[in-house]
């Protein structure tokens, strides 16, 4: 597609349920990032993929959070046993990494707004 696509755009769930958030990056972008943005907060780094592997997943807040990327393209962020503090906007971005001659610009999707009741 022309840009980074995220789904769902909005998700309301009950505490304790599992949720899956999907990101479809720009075609050909090797790097994919997940960030979390809470109300009035900046972007909190969660995980970074280069191809299908995750060199840095230091930002995942707990073992309830996991992410995978398949075929060097689509990524899924899964939150198990959701808690109210998980309520936030989850942003995905893709890029060509600096080392491969890209500008390093992150192209963001519009986010998935998660509300845990």
């Amino acid at each position, binding site marked *: 597609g022309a840009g980074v696509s995220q789904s769902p755009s909005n998700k309301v769930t009950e505490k304790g349920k599992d949720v899956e958030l999907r990101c479809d990056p720009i075609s050909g972008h090797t790097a994919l990032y997940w960030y979390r943005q809470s109300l009035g907060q*900046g972007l909190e780094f969660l995980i970074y993929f280069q191809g299908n592997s995750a060199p840095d997943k230091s930002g995942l807040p707990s073992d309830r959070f996991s992410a995978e990327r398949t075929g060097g393209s689509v990524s899924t962020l899964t939150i198990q046993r959701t808690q109210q503090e998980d309520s936030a906007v989850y942003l995905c971005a893709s890029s060509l990494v600096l080392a491969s001659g890209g500008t390093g610009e992150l192209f963001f999707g519009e986010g998935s707004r998660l509300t845990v009741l």
Partner: protein
Amino acid sequence: QKEVEQDPGPLSVPEGAIVSLNCTYSNSAFQYFMWYRQYSRKGPELLMYTYSSGNKEDGRFTAQVDKSSKYISLFIRDSQPSDSATYLCAMTMTSGTYKYIFGTGTRLKVLA
């Protein structure tokens, strides 16, 4: 202490004013600096990037980096109501992990 510090604002200025937005950072390994603009309920979009100390100008926007002070700035000249948004600084190393660290963002409102 956060790796990147940014005043959250909000900052209100009259139309036509010069706006100065700033970030400080603690990791001297950061080499690549960016400013993103985020409108309400949208994803951030890149405004400017720079690899080195000094100034970089693009239209009404000027990005400034002072690595010795670990301080970066974004100046907006002749500010317009359409510039009202949240401005986030971001930075990363140019080797190793390409983890981009963002500031909290400064909310700017330009009054007509």
